[in-house]
């Protein structure tokens, strides 16, 4: 309603302004043309020799077939010498012309008439009054005014109606959006705004809002999914922990029994903390600001340390861990994170590889790239599961211990370091590949 009123008021104001401008211009232009004619008369009679002036004047009046001209030649005492005006006006205001009543001598039945006149001095001391009857002019201006009013009234009405209608429509559209946002605030993300087949700019805005809602709904879905995953993953060890403590309280008799219960409870808690810690680290790795503290890393040293750290545990499980390390350029990175990623890959090989097998860790150049690869003698991740294994909590085999965050973490560390996580087409090799930066600007 307010919209409509404002719009109507604006249109009305515009119409009135237009009419006013037209009126002022028409009026002004008419006055200028009269003044021009009066000035011409003054000049003409001033140039005419004194003795011929009355004759010329009578001549001019005879030629005025519209009978709307006033001319009068007066001597220094103000007595009429020749013309159709009885007397001079009592006072002469300054300016090019003025409006005054004159006394026509040749118009039948008219003693006084309104005219725009001027009085100019002739070289011989006589004075000339020149004027134009305003009756016709007034008539013409009245006509203009009437036509303006006639045009203005329907214009105003139309402006009001259009303003109200357009305002109503805009208000209705805004109301639709507002009602939708209210429903969204109330929790319903499924609602969408109607969009016409050929949308105007408001329709395009609605389409954008719909697209934004699609994205929002998708993100909320993902967050809910991750939340559900976390809840589910944590519930299992929590349930086990609860059962263990319950049974311990019921059955344990000796301090040794209690110690055993609390030991296993602590182990369960550690698993839980491990899950929470890994999730926090994954989130943290997604935040690339961490790159700011990258330092040069010697991958050869790092892989050597990883092998040194894992060789005993591999041997204890009857596995052989071999390391082939070729010199590679120094990279920028975070040594602890890279170590964590590489040891996760080795952990997977130990867990999923066949018994008494060989685990091969290698570092070297693969064409133009640095490659770190870990392979066991097993089948590796089945190709169908490869897109899944880097998702949180995905576990390829439930018969192996773990919480399913290892490869997500490897992937996150790789992303942070600009490396790619690749699975070999054949066999079990998992690699981190660093494309060397020097190959990018070839033109340099």
């Amino acid at each position, binding site marked *: 309603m307010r919209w409509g009123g404002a719009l109507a008021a604006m249109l009305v104001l515009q119409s009135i302004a237009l009419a006013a401008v037209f009126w002022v211009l028409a009026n002004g232009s008419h006055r200028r043309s009269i003044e021009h004619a009066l000035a011409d008369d003054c000049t003409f009679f001033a140039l005419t020799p004194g003795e011929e002036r009355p004759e010329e004047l009578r001549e001019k009046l005879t030629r005025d077939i519209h009978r709307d001209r006033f001319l009068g030649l007066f001597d220094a005492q103000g007595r009429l010498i020749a013309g159709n005006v009885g007397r001079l006006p009592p006072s002469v205001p300054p300016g090019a012309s003025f409006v005054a009543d004159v006394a026509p001598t040749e118009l039948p039945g008219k003693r006084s008439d309104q005219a725009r006149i001027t009085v100019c001095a002739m070289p011989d001391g006589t004075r000339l009054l020149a004027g134009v009857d305003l009756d016709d002019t007034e008539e013409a201006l009245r006509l203009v005014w009437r036509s303006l009013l006639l045009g203005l009234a329907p214009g105003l009405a139309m402006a009001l109606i259009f303003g109200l209608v357009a305002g109503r429509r805009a208000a209705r559209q805004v109301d639709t959006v507002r009602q939708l946002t209210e429903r969204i605030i109330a929790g319903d993300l499924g609602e969408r705004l109607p969009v016409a087949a050929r949308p105007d700019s408001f329709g395009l805005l609605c389409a954008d809002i719909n697209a934004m809602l699609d994205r929002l709904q998708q993100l909320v879905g993902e967050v809910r999914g991750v939340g559900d995953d976390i809840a589910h993953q944590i519930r299992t060890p929590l349930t086990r922990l609860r059962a263990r403590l319950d049974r311990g309280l019921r059955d344990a008799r000796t301090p040794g029994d209690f*110690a055993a219960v609390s*030991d296993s409870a602590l182990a369960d808690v550690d698993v839980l903390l491990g899950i929470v810690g890994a999730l*926090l680290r994954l989130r943290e790795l997604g935040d690339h600001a*961490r790159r700011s503290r990258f330092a040069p890393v010697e991958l050869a040293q790092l892989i050597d340390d990883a092998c040194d750290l894992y060789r*005993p*545990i591999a041997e204890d499980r009857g596995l052989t861990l071999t390391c082939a390390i070729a010199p590679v350029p120094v990279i920028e990175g975070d040594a*602890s994170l890279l170590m964590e990623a590489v040891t996760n890959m080795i952990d997977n090989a130990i867990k999923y590889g066949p018994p008494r097998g060989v685990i091969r860790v290698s570092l070297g150049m693969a064409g133009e790239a640095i490659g770190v690869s870990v392979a066991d003698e097993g089948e590796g991740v089945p190709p169908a599961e490869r897109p899944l294994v880097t998702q949180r909590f995905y576990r390829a085999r439930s018969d192996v211990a773990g919480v399913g965050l290892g490869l997500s973490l490897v992937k996150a560390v790789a992303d942070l370091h600009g490396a790619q996580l690749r699975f070999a087409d054949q066999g079990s090799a998992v690699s981190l590949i660093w494309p060397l930066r020097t190959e990018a600007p070839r033109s340099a």
Partner: protein
Amino acid sequence: MAVTHILLIEDDDGTADEILLELATAGHAATRTATLRDGDPLARGGDIDLMILDRQLPDGEGLALLADLRRDGVRTPALVLSALGSLDDRVRGLKAGGDDYLAKPFALVELVARVEALLRRPNDTRDTRLIAGPIDLDLLAGRGMRAGRPLELLPRELKLLEYLVRRQGRIVTRSMLLQDVWGYSFEPNSNVVDVHMGRLRRKVDIDGEAQLIRNVRGQGYVFDLPA
């Protein structure tokens, strides 16, 4: 053992109570404040041997206080705690003048082990010959002996033993070993450190000898001479 006095600045009551209990069990007297404003004068008081400082406190950032103290010449060792469990924060914590950094959640034994490590830092790490009871380590030659018996240690095992011997009688945790002996700070998925320690123990303590390296259940390892 002289009683040490520890200042704990931690706003969470539950966490603070646990830490205070654990410190008391380990024989340390501790004072706790919940805000930087209350902790500041105590930290400058001079009778504090070590401070444990949380990062996010109601009246500001613990590291800011630490940086202030260090600028004013207060050299009391500081262990920084944080719920922001990132290595970034670790680096910032150490830069601000922290001597060690623990990310929450941490095991209380880890906290106490690190507190004790800070209270009694190894005095001369440049010694190339270490003798502790029957153990005789020649770090320059990379050899170790126990009562005249050569220990046949791999280089990493020698470093592990050196680390333990220098911290005689104190618990060292797995993450301390990983961080200080290998130089990486992360939580491995497997018990890799235990496997290394198992091998070292089998070389150092053979049948019939007194056990010098003990596994403290759920906590870590201690090198100790028999009483």
